[in-house]
């Protein structure tokens, strides 16, 4: 029986060294935050960049329907502004292009049980999220993910988020080519890249294999790439139509064409150049206008393109730009079994309906991809383990999450489909509703999100229930419509691109707050999120199911032959639909029926009192601040080395922490400062020491001299005993404190060379 091992020890050999080191560093940063040695904003952005997000009520209070309760949580440590350390939070896990294998499913299942509430939630960007996670559990959680090749790094925060891609990539009958290798390369290249660390807001990337289908949702992304080919000198060449500056949010922007054919070898360098331009020119102070869409709108696409291309020219060649290209033509996936067609085998009850909605014939003969619909994107641990077993039985490592919050199994031999269906039905996941009006997409909303206004999941659950009961009677034209629900205007539920979209708002009815949803009609999921919907008006939350029925029945009655829903909405116009919904905007008075004054699945009287400050925008933390925080962490590591009886290593690490702090200061003036020690010292000396900006009013240049002397000492290779190491650590702490002081002075603009007479006075 293993008794004393930690997860870190137990799975040390399974973790990639780089990931293991990153997690160790984060664990040290947590410890420093507990000691108050890392600023709360810096730590907030640090944890966000590790995927650790805040959650509703993490400010330590909650409205119980009658009054605001102060939650019984320790309040002495916080993990960000107004965010209690012990309050449960959300953990987002990046799944690049949605790709998963059975082993990963099993680990996700285990972690959801041990660290969350037993549920793995698939997001609208192919991530996995856990809720109700304690931050103290996150290092172990991250290590166990790392052991199966998954990272949560940069899943949140002002960085490049999960790179998404069409889940049918590689098997799609209409794709130009498989974008999977490109999405994977892009994800790896930009993860932690120095040029992506200084954004004012997040940056989302998507890949699509074709123009016409929705799967990639390219045009609603900060950067989107659609596969293209072109014949050059008689040879077919691969490339991408590259789009930039799309985004949903409160005001949706459609991405603009940056290049109609960007050669494949230019994809990564141009991504890097775009990142550099965004980092340099993007808004940093006003977070509401900090996405790249606003920068492009301000500059114009032509000027933005010009700047990016100029930046591209400045980039030194990086072999990673093209390292993936020799293998992009190799098939990345293998089937488990030979492809055999269905050919009249036995069909279980319910199979035909499921087959019609949940399967897709691959371009490879005899193979089918099957969508396992997860209600509201949720899967239990048992379900995930069962899905891992099912994957091993029918396919290999060919599982993908989808932006519609489902899981797609690829490469199923068609003859196996009846057995596959039986297997998923047995675990409650055999509903025949993929890509139908019943398969409602929703963001977390007021269930867990600090920004949520209304219960998007509550509404989605109700619509699933009501529409599911009617699904067999629904007109075919209605059956294939998409409903998407967001809890607020920020559009995490992607309501703008739904046929019928909703986002949560609050309305006052005779002095009472009432949850409402704004109705958005006519968005286009197809054509890579081809059009955004039209706002119609607000309807009380509890009357939304009636509104859906009213709209869909009207559509069936009034549509022209084969008229699509988008065309119908635009033809009849906003006024007619608004009139249609007019009766549904009214609710009984509060004393007649209080049900309308609470939200779906929540008996509390509706209030906005629980809304907090969202963390979607992250904290704008400069690279200088991050580097100063890193110096603190290195000094902490030096102390651990000293405690472990390694004074020489401790001394070297203490010196390194001083150099790191000096680098932080230089970064405030020159963000491009290299990692070269000598260059950092030279720049620090000329910019801060010789100018006396770093000097202390009383101690003069003493603290800087600690670093210079430490360099000499370490360089001389002398023996280091524990006393000398302790002294060096103390000097390093003083140096880092002085660096923080200097940085603060620079920030508020009061830094100036100190007057030497004050030094003389104190010395005297």
């Amino acid at each position, binding site marked *: 029986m293993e008794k004393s091992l930690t997860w870190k020890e137990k799975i040390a050999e399974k973790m990639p060294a780089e990931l293991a080191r990153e997690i160790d560093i984060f664990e040290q940063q947590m410890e420093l935050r507990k000691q108050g040695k890392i600023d709360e904003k810096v730590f907030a952005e640090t944890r966000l960049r590790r995927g650790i997000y805040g959650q509703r009520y993490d400010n330590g209070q909650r409205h119980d329907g009658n009054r605001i309760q102060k939650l019984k949580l320790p309040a002495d440590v916080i993990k960000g502004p107004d965010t209690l350390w012990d309050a449960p939070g959300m953990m987002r896990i990046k799944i690049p292009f949605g790709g998963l294998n059975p082993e990963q499913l099993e680990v996700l299942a285990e972690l959801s049980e041990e660290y969350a509430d037993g549920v793995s939630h698939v997001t609208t960007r192919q991530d996995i999220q856990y809720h109700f996670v304690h931050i103290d559990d996150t290092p172990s959680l991250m290590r166990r993910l790392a052991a199966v090749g998954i990272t949560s790094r940069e899943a949140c925060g002002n960085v490049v988020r999960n790179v998404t891609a069409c889940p049918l990539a590689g098997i799609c009958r209409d794709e130009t080519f498989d974008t999977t290798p490109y999405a994977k390369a892009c994800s790896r290249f930009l993860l932690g890249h120095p040029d992506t660390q200084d954004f004012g807001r997040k940056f989302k990337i998507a890949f699509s294999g074709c123009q016409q289908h929705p799967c990639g949702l390219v045009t609603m992304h900060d950067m989107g790439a659609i596969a293209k080919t072109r014949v050059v000198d008689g040879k077919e060449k691969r490339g991408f139509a590259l789009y930039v500056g799309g985004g949903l949010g409160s005001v949706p922007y459609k991405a603009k064409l940056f290049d109609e054919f960007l050669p494949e070898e230019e994809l990564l360098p141009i991504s890097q150049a775009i990142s550099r331009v965004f980092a340099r020119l993007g808004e940093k102070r006003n977070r509401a206008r900090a996405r790249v869409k606003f920068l492009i709108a301000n500059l114009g696409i032509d000027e933005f393109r010009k700047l990016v291309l100029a930046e591209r020219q400045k980039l030194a060649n990086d072999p990673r730009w093209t390292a993936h290209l020799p293998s992009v033509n190799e098939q990345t996936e293998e089937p488990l079994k030979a492809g055999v067609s269905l050919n009249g085998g036995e069909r279980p009850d319910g199979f035909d309906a499921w087959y019609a909605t949940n399967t897709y014939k691959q371009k490879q003969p005899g193979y089918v991809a099957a969508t396992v619909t997860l209600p509201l994107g*949720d899967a239990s641990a048992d379900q995930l*383990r069962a899905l891992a077993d099912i994957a091993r039985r029918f396919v290999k490592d060919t599982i993908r999450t989808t932006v519609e919050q489902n899981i797609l199994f690829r490469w199923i031999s068609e003859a196996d489909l009846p057995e596959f269906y039986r297997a998923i039905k047995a675990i409650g996941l055999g509903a025949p509703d993929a890509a139908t009006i019943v398969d409602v997409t929703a963001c977390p909303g007021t269930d867990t999100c600090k920004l949520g206004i209304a219960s998007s999941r509550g509404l989605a659950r109700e619509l699933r229930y009501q529409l599911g009961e009617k699904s067999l009677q629904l007109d075919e034209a209605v059956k294939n419509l998409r409903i998407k629900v967001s809890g607020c205007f920020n559009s995490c539920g992607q309501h703008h691109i739904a046929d019928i979209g909703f986002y949560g708002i609050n309305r006052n009815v005779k002095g009472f707050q009432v949850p409402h949803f704004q109705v958005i009609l006519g968005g286009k999921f197809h054509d890579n999120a081809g059009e955004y919907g039209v706002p119609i008006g607000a309807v009380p939350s509890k009357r939304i199911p009636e509104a859906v029925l009213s709209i869909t029945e009207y559509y069936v009655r009034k549509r022209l032959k084969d008229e699509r829903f988008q065309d119908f909405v635009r033809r009849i116009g906003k006024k007619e639909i608004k009139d249609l919904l007019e009766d549904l905007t009214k609710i009984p008075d509060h004393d007649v029926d209080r049900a309308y004054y609470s939200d779906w699945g929540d008996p509390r009287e509706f209030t906005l009192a629980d809304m907090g400050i969202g963390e979607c925008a992250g904290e704008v933390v400069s690279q200088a601040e991050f580097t100063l925080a890193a110096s603190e962490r290195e000094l902490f590591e030096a102390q651990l080395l000293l405690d472990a009886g390694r004074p020489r290593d401790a001394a070297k690490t203490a010196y390194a922490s001083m150099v790191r702090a000096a680098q932080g200061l230089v970064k405030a003036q020159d963000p491009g400062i290299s990692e070269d020690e000598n260059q950092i010292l030279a720049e620090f000396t000329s910019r801060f020491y010789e100018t006396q900006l770093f000097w202390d009013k009383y101690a003069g240049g003493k603290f800087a001299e600690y670093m210079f002397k430490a360099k000499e000492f370490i360089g001389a290779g002398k023996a280091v005993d524990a006393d000398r190491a302790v002294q060096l650590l103390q000097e390093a702490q003083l140096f880092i404190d002085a660096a923080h002081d200097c940085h603060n002075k620079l920030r508020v603009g009061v830094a100036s060379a100190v007057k030497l007479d004050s030094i003389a006075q104190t010395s005297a």
Partner: protein
Amino acid sequence: MELQKINVKVFTAEPKVPLTDFIDVFHGWIQATDGVYLDVADYSHMQAGPGIVLVADDANVSIDETDNRRGLLYSQKSKMSGSNLEKLSTVLRSALENCQRLEQEPALRGKLRFLGNQVEILVNDRLVAPNTGEAFEEIRPEIDFLARRLYSTTNFTLLRNQQDTRLRFNVTISTPLSFETKTLLNNLQAI
């Protein structure tokens, strides 16, 4: 083995109460306490899922439907002190107290009954307690002792689900006799 994160599930008789009815009950519990409970999570849309979860910092209480068997699951989260037996009996007692509280809820009275003759113990930490025979043998004396006290008899069985080692450590204590939660709580007083 030093046990932590002990979970106890007490099964209900035939589920007569719609799962969503527990949402209102749990919100009522929140109102009746002062900051102990953090939230109610609704997973009623999932088959055989976590059901309705009343989240707290110390321990969650949920109406759990794992394996399509409804029961009250008490999930200890915060670190406990004492011997393994003390921890096991404390968590079991807390679970039964919550069962009793639910049975006494006006909205559920007469509709909800817990089957006292079967209790599942889980350890929600695979590092401390993997689902292995070795772990079972190590923990068995404490669970055996606890079961004797709980049922005041030796007429019980301990069964571990050993078909799937991926599961959390679990032992189900079953007896052919029938018990009410009140009796079980009284029996536990002796520990």
